[in-house]
């Protein structure tokens, strides 16, 4: 009975903890900073969050299988550069190229992890390095920044708005809804949970564990590439220096959102809330002005720590 009570407590804290924190932070910010609630600021907040949300969506799947993907930061940057370079050949190339290349690197991650039993973190650390190298190779060692013609359709993808809200926000929202459906309402989603929850049991239950792993890393790579493409469209260029440490932000928001880093449990909604929480805090820190932006990573680290320790102690 004790374990049951603990489980319920865990559930509430994990499901609602981040949401409660988000509501509190938003409420306080609204009251303290008059500029926080302005429509402009909220639009900007949502737009900033949408890129991270797309990456974190893929990470959610990976982490639920009990894995980790450290390559997404590099893939994010690579995706942007590829999109910017590809934009000279039209909209389709600009969009497809980053998805295909980053998806392929994700696929290789998945194959290495699923077929050779190498640790996910070391495999994806290597591809972090590889993707960064590839990025440097196609930008003359980072010296060239490809520009996207301001009048191209691709730029519209990043800068177009509906009621002032940027397209990336809607793209991220649609993807997250789709992701939630896939996770909870399809066989693949159930396999993701089973793989991370108890791998050996999952195999005995007939779950295609290896195939599931290969797929989640491919999805994660593809989504990171897409986030890069959207960012490039928004910035109208393939910035080479972005994405350093983005994998850590993505992991942090996923875990803060209540997804177990040990796998087997997690929600897309939680991840979106995690993104919201981190972005709001970042926004507030920027508004305070006297605090520099480095506080943001400290806060992320502390949040991460609190969540992980809570997850661990409540599970006992």
């Amino acid at each position, binding site marked *: 009975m004790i374990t049951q009570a603990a489980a319920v407590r865990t559930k509430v804290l994990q499901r609602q903890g981040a949401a409660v924190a988000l509501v509190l932070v938003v409420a306080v910010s609204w009251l303290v900073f008059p500029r926080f609630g302005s429509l402009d600021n909220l639009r900007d907040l949502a737009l900033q969050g949408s890129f991270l949300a797309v990456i974190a969506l893929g990470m959610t799947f990976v982490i639920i299988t009990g894995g980790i993907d450290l390559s997404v930061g590099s893939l994010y940057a690579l995706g942007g550069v590829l999109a910017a370079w590809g934009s000279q050949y039209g909209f389709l190339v600009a969009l497809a190229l980053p998805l295909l290349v980053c998806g392929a690197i994700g696929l290789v991650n998945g194959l290495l992890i699923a077929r050779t039993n190498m640790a996910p*973190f070391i495999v994806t650390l*290597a591809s972090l390095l590889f993707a960064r190298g590839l990025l*440097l190779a196609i930008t003359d060692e980072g010296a060239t920044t490809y520009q996207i013609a301001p009048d191209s359709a691709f730029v519209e993808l990043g800068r177009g708005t509906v009621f002032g809200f940027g397209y990336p926000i809607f793209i991220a929202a649609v993807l997250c809804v789709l992701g939630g459906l896939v996770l909870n309402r399809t066989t693949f989603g159930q396999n993701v949970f089973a793989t991370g929850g108890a791998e050996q049991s999952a195999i005995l239950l007939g779950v295609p564990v290896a195939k599931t792993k290969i797929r989640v890393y491919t999805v994660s790579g593809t989504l990171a590439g897409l986030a890069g493409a959207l960012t490039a469209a928004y910035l109208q260029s393939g910035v080479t220096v972005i994405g350093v440490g983005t994998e*850590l932000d993505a992991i942090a928001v996923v875990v803060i959102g209540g997804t177990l880093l*040990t796998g087997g449990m997690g929600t897309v909604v939680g991840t979106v809330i995690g993104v919201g929480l981190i972005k709001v805090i970042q926004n507030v820190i920027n508004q305070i002005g006297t605090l520099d932006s480095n*506080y943001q*990573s400290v806060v992320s680290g502390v949040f*991460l720590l609190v969540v992980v320790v809570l997850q661990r102690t409540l599970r006992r």
Partner: protein
Amino acid sequence: MTLPATKTDTKTATRTAARTRWLQDNGVYVAVVALLLFNAVFTSNFLTLGNFRTQLVQAAPVLIVALGMALVIGTEGVDLSVGAVMALAAAIIPLYLGAGPLLAILMALVAGLTAGAFNGFLVAKVGIQPIVATLALLVGGRGLALVIADGQLVQLHDPAFLALGTDDLLGLPISVLIAALLAIAIAGLTNRTTFGRQLVAIGDNRKAATLAGLPVNRVLVGVYTLCGVLAAISGVLATSRLGASDPADMGLLMELSAITAVVVGGTPLTGGKVRVLGTVFGVILMQLVRATLIKHNLPDSIAQMIQAAIIVAAVYVARERR
């Protein structure tokens, strides 16, 4: 007819296994020698004292971190926070340098010790997976360092402190000498002390080690603490060589370099084995690879991709077959 076939299969399998094991054990030495020979023939100005000096000075901070990492990996753990700890050490130096270099160094080491002990506490007492426990400090540690330093790069002017990174002792750069001494000390610790043998036993079979009455928690906390202190030492030396406290860049991706060196050196990620000499050669190998690529005017991009390939290959060879 099946019997002889099976026999041959078994024989081939044993031979392959033996070859794999030999490669796991000696691959790094062979690779270093091969690379040295290659450079001796094809690279001009490679076999010069000055060049070796440069290579060693560049490798020293990585080696010091890798030594701690080897111990942690020996317990079937990993420490992702070493780069962040180096940044913390770098950020702390200018705060206390006014009171003399000794105090500044001491405070930096205390920071490393605290960070390491914290990691160890999370792993041993709270029971969090090492990769997760140290991730929090990786995310937050550098930010904290930047907050401490106010996001600034600070030029350092204390001559005694700077001497640490630039001067020689007994004809060797001080940082190289320190790294060598630490390598010897860690080798002694691993092979000749109770702590070292307990550490390896815990990494090899934790359940059996617990039942044998070994102080598992104490050893784990000790290992992570030591790793934190070594990372701080590395941060101090690198800062002194740079002549500036630069928490934004100090030790960036160091966790990757250190893990790579350890794994390339033949210490398996599955724990139960610490190869100190292998780790030293792992660091040297990665340094030589980088140097070779640079000397042959291969761009950084290619260098990074080749390093990625080496990491995957090394882990692939070193992985335990299930």
